[in-house]
């Protein structure tokens, strides 16, 4: 009874908090997420009408989404933090049970529940008993999804309290995500037989097994849910304890200039902040694993790109640079004569460039080329990243939680995880764009590309840095206010977008929403595949063209993508009133 009451109270508390949170931009983000999720769920249900193998594979993807999603999207849903209840003297189990029930309140569980209706569909197609089993199977399956997510976040959170833990979890997460990105490699390895049987035996497949008449699977799901609940309760009670204070000796700061001081401060933050340790090793692991995974097929053509991929991923990880430091921005505002952006750029470069250069040179030496293209991409991307990181974080600032106010979950640097994710993707796309000129010239003219890469890299570093500096100078107090209040001010939130007509809004949505498809995969990536001779590749149209048309088709897609973005900007752009 008491447990039921606690859980009910917590669930109502969460509903109330969500009602307050889902206003303004966050409501839009949540709405967009819900629509995308509903589409995915509909797709999953459709699979239930076709092939059970595919449905099992679909649920495996949902499972991975639940486990990995929160790790990359700012620590998952923490509307109700365990810390809120630490003074109430609830037993860990009761706390976990209450938090579990409230964890079912939200957009993501609702969307997943919709996707799990596929179990019911599969059951109905088999018979009455199967359909009846589908009901508890759906509930248990959803519980297992949610619990696995909570447990994995809690484990990573604990790991992030020590440096080895942060590094190991960064390496593992990077490897897993890279493997998912390169899943085709493993499909090819397993002989292109379609769906590997293992998807049936992952916990995500047990619900479906139960529906298909393997009754033990239902018991296994229930047992797993109980075990996970116990594990989560145990982890929750460990989370409340503070991290051990550091007592190591510190190397003295040798900087003698303002710029040097900023570099020294940033580099110390890079090495001491375990979340940044995690991000750095994650990007490194992702780059290496992504580029190296085709080796299992005996193809080393992607290996030289480990360094460039590392740079792009590292830039995306740091896309909210200013937001992560929170209100410490006030010190920058109080010392207007020093240049914060330049110092941060140098620090970013000295933390990432050595790794990127060593990776790139070593791996390209292994494969023996293509030197011109790789050496063109390297400076272009490094310069692009150091220019874009301060610029994007100053313009797209997602208000973070001040480091000293963060709760027990170190991954949670902001309450607006949708905003963080969006910013990271934006950064991925923009950094890639900065290397396009150098890459194209290198593909067409060889070594000339390297010169182009150096020039665009230096230009991006200098020019975009200058823009970021200007933004900080002119809008610094506003940015500080955003971080202090945790809210974007009304004026920028409204933008001009609200004033547009419905048609214009739709056009702008379509352009910004889908412009990336022709630009990046069908344009740039297809061109890279064509260059590497990877023809007839999945859905990359240019790779199916006769030889003379391949580059023109990819180029046309790039042009289309750019035109879509251009149209979008043109539609949204402020105009003089008459």
């Amino acid at each position, binding site marked *: 009874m008491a447990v039921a009451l606690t859980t009910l109270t917590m669930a109502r508390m969460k509903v109330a908090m969500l009602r307050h949170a889902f206003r303004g931009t966050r409501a839009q983000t949540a709405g967009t997420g819900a629509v995308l999720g509903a589409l995915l769920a509909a797709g999953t249900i459709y699979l239930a009408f076709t092939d059970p193998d595919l449905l099992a594979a679909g649920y495996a993807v949902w499972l991975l989404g639940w486990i990995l999603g929160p790790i990359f999207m700012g620590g998952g849903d923490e509307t109700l933090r365990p810390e809120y209840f630490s003074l109430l003297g609830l037993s860990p189990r009761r706390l976990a049970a209450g938090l579990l029930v409230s964890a079912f309140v939200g957009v993501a569980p609702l969307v997943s529940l919709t996707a799990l209706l596929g179990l019911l569909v599969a059951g109905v197609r088999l018979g009455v008993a199967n359909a009846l089993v589908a009901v508890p199977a759906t509930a248990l399956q959803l519980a297992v999804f949610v619990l696995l997510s909570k447990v994995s976040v809690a484990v990573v959170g604990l790991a992030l309290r020590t440096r080895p833990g942060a590094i190991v979890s960064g390496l593992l997460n990077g490897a897993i995500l890279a493997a998912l990105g390169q899943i085709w490699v493993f499909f090819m390895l397993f002989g292109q037989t379609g769906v590997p049987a293992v998807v049936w035996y992952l916990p995500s497949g047990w619900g479906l097994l139960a529906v298909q008449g393997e009754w033990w699977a239902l018991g296994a799901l229930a047992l797993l849910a109980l075990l996970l609940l116990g594990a989560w309760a145990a982890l929750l009670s460990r989370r409340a304890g503070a991290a051990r204070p550091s007592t190591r000796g510190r190397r003295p700061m040798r900087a003698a200039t303002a710029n040097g001081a900023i570099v020294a401060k940033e580099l110390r933050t890079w090495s*001491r902040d375990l979340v940044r340790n995690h991000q750095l090793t994650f990007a490194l692991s992702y780059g290496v694993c992504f580029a190296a995974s085709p080796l299992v097929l005996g193809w080393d053509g992607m290996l030289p790109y480990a360094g460039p991929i590392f740079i792009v991923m590292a830039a995306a990880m740091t896309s909210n640079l200013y937001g992560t430091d929170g209100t*410490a921005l006030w010190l920058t*505002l109080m010392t207007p*004569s020093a240049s914060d952006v330049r110092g941060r750029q140098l620090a970013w470069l000295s933390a990432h460039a050595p790794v990127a250069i060593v990776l790139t040179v070593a791996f390209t030496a292994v494969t023996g080329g293509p030197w011109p293209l790789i050496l063109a991409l390297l400076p272009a991307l490094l310069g692009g990243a150091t220019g874009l990181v301060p610029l994007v974080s100053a313009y797209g600032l997602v208000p973070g939680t001040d*480091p*000293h106010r963060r709760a027990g979950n170190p991954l949670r640097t902001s309450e607006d995880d949708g905003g963080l994710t969006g910013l990271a993707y934006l950064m991925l796309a923009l950094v890639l764009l900065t290397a396009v000129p150098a890459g194209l010239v290198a593909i067409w003219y060889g070594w000339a590309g390297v010169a182009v890469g150096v020039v665009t890299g230096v230009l991006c570093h200098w020019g975009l840095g200058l823009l970021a500096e200007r933004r900080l100078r002119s809008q610094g107090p*506003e940015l500080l206010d955003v971080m202090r209040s945790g809210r974007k001010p009304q004026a920028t939130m409204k933008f001009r977008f609200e004033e547009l007509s419905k048609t214009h809004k739709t056009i702008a949505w379509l352009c910004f929403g889908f412009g990336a498809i022709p630009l990046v995969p069908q344009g740039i990536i297809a061109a890279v595949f064509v260059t590497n001779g990877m023809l007839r590749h999945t859905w990359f149209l240019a790779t199916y063209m006769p030889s003379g048309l391949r580059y023109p088709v990819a180029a046309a897609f790039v042009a289309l993508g750019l035109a879509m973005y251009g149209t979008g900007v043109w539609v949204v752009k402020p105009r003089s009133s008459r």
Partner: protein
Amino acid sequence: MTPALEISGLTKRFGDKLAVDTIDLSVPPGSFFGLVGQNGAGKTTTLSMAVGLLRPDGGSARIFGEDVWSAPERAKAMVGVLPDGLAMPERLTGLEVLTYLGLLRGLDKEVVARRAEDLLAVLELDGAEKTLVIEYSTGMRKKIGLATALLHAPRLLVLDEPFEAVDPVSAATIKTILRGFVAGGGSIVLSSHVMALVEQLCDRVAVIDRGTVAAAGTLDEVRGASSLEETFVELVGERDNGIKELSWLSR
């Protein structure tokens, strides 16, 4: 004489709420100026606008005659600020924070090292030389914040709640430092809702209530014959008359 801090017509609106409504204040050089008011009266907002951390909707702020918004470099070089509850470079030790900030302020490396050592010793933070700021207690955070405000030997100090969460021993140290600063010709503006403290330290007071100045002048002008606390409650407190008690608390 040019006022150390001159605020004229500062106004700030957050959404529908008028947080600060055309406040005028003048802090003469060499004065110890106390800003008192209830929680949410607009003290922090006013001080943030006065030092250039929050852009006002209207009005201006000058530090020794230099406009904070049109001549920020000169104005900000003359002021040391202790904001309430803002972050620091959290992954640095106290010594590193001071070194970093001193260099940002354009001080010479040796000067920074000497002053940082002095400040940490006086504020009793030198024992925590291996501790990162993020691991500091609330009181230690206040003290390192005060050290950063003093580091470049400014002529004006603007301190938002400098004594909150500070233990009595440290508070006594801080009071001595602040009195010495004023005796040496410096000017201080501090905000607080502890009346006794303001009475003890300040020679001038302004009472802020709901975004406006309810009273301002020398301490004796404002408090008259009664204590500052009584005057304050009279000015801003208890609009519905009568403090309610919690009857269910007594057995």
